[in-house]
């Protein structure tokens, strides 16, 4: 069976004893890294030798990269700049590891950095749009958001929801996306948004109301698809309030 990932990397000025370490111990240390918890990796990244730090950084990165990529892409609604966001988030996280108090919470801490970064970008682009400047914001890239396995209905719904989300304030948009697209629970959403549970509930509720009002549901209450002409009745039946 062929090896999958090379994971070869270079380290500047590695300590001599590391260079001379027996091969077997190097291998076992690599395997041990994979089995370490986040708290141990964070400790190693803080206090280890330069080689250990790099290995710990890589282990943390590879463990949580998928989470960060998906988080950023789903908040943005496109993959534009996602790599830059994730790169910057990890860099900032690694640079501030000393500030992390709960070592086991690296993932949610990293997530909050990604969310914060995305929030800044969304707010910036929203301001730009208000002033009629620059780009009109990242378009919703439904092909980037959905997989090939997604049903046409799911694709249509996601496209519509993201189009609505784009008109919402960044905080509300992020909270709703984390809750209903990413599927985090309320506490996880609050942690990622770096705000209280009450605040995140408020944000989600605001976004939810707006989406309820404007979302065109193509299904009736029994789950059957509705034609466009029926949506008014269906919509009015479930509309609970104004949005904006």
């Amino acid at each position, binding site marked *: 069976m062929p*090896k999958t990932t090379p994971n070869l990397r270079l380290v500047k000025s*590695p300590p001599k004893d590391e260079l001379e370490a027996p091969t077997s111990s190097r291998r076992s240390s690599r395997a041990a890294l*994979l089995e370490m918890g986040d708290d141990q990796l964070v400790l190693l990244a803080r206090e280890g030798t330069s080689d250990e730090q790099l290995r710990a950084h890589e282990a943390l990165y590879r463990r949580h990269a998928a989470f960060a990529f998906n988080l950023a892409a789903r908040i943005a609604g496109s993959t534009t700049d996602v790599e830059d966001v994730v790169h910057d988030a*990890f860099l900032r996280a690694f640079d501030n590891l000393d500030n992390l108090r709960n070592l086991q919470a690296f993932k949610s801490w990293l997530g909050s950095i990604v969310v914060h970064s995305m929030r800044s970008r969304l707010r910036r682009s929203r301001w730009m749009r208000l002033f009629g400047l620059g780009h009109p914001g990242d378009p919703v890239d439904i092909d980037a958001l959905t997989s090939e396995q997604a049903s046409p209905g*799911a694709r249509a719904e996601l496209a519509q*929801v993201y189009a609505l989300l784009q008109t919402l304030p960044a905080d509300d948009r992020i909270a709703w996306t984390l809750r209903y697209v990413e599927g985090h629970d309320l506490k996880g959403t609050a942690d990622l948004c770096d705000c209280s549970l009450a605040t995140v509930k408020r944000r989600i509720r605001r976004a939810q109301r707006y989406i309820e009002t404007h979302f065109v549901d193509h299904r009736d209450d029994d789950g059957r698809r509705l034609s466009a002409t029926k949506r008014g009745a269906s919509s009015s039946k479930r509309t609970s309030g104004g949005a904006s």
Partner: protein
Amino acid sequence: MSDDRPPRTLEFSWQDEPTALRDHASPERIDRVWSRLERDITTDDDLRVPDALRSPRPRGRWGRPSLALAAGFALGVGVAGWLWRGSAERPVVMQPAPVQNDAPLVFAAGTAPRTYPLPGGGVITLEPGSIVDRVEGPGHELQLRLVRGEATVSTRGATGRERVSLLVGQARVVTAAGSMRIRHDGDTAFLRVIDGSAEVKTPHGDQKGLLLGPDDEARVPVRVVTAQNDPPRSTPRIPGETETDTDDESGTTEESPLDEMDDPTASTPAVVPAWVKACNEYDFAAAVRLFAENGGDLAAVTDPGHLMCLGDGHTARKDGQQAAATYERVVHGTGSDTQRALAALELVRIYQGLGETDKVARYRELHTKLSKGRVHSAEALCQKIQSEAAATRADAVRKLAERYRLQFPNGACIQTIQQLLAQLAAQEEASADDEGDDARGDEDPYEEVAEEEASPGGE
């Protein structure tokens, strides 16, 4: 409407389809970002994180209103300034400004266009997904290699260097002052000179090359796509140029240049000789064998990289005479100084083995001359080893490492190479052992916090 009223819970199809949402974390993307991160992490602290990223995590919520006001004001001023300058769309310009010796070895653009300053002046703008390597150039020449994508090189105002070479496959475009846009299309490249002039040399063209002026465009073959004994392809053509204007050594009839431009996919049949493929796969011995089966006409091979490959193959087969003949063609050929220096070094080694001391002295002197003052040669070789290691081409790593040891016995990369080789050995040992050690996946499902969770409106 009161906020306490529970909202109707919308049900979406995607929530019932676990695979509806795309997984954005492809292995390539993860590796790509890690390589960027790794470079940043291992760089000096002062250069590592831009100031904008140095702030700790988001500030406490009590400080936010005043901060938001200040930030809002600053943003307003910034936006007004931006508006005043009337710039609609501009690519991202990387800071800080260029420093000759610290300029990056790889220029890359991810999802947005990027503009990098070039050492010695000028800029290079990359379209999304483009990669350009900085390789060595002779003397004061900056040499770049367009690995993929599209780049615009502008050398206007550059004073610290004579010219810029842009390599695309086996073609080379040289410009002294001006700007040009070039796109890598696989077997061909599309070149447009915006201003100034550019000289194009292709793997099949003559040594003189073709000179393009402002607004000239050309589609350039960038690799040998025919079998060894096939007639060579044409030099690049300028649209509108007549057939007789081009320097076609083969005298074969070519299709219209415009046709070629309109349909790049139809321009060249992608037939790469088997021995070249073997070269690309670092199977040098096989390359020599296949080359011999294909006629073995060494005089027809002009590419220094291919010659080096054949020389390495002869060396692997312990055929010192043939290896020497091949390396001598590189040394006396038109390759870069780096390639010629490496070939000279190989010749030193071969002639040492053959006991021909006068040739040893001659090529040692030539090697010293070709390597003289080339501050980046060690760095470039180190970089090459790095990239081969990342691609897990163990043979190439070992060979290049050996070259590095010979060429730069006190080089700064020696220690790194030692560690790299140790890692390589460890990995090979690991792969030979049980696979369970490293086959463990990075499963780390996002742990759900168990809490009694009401609907958002249920508080």
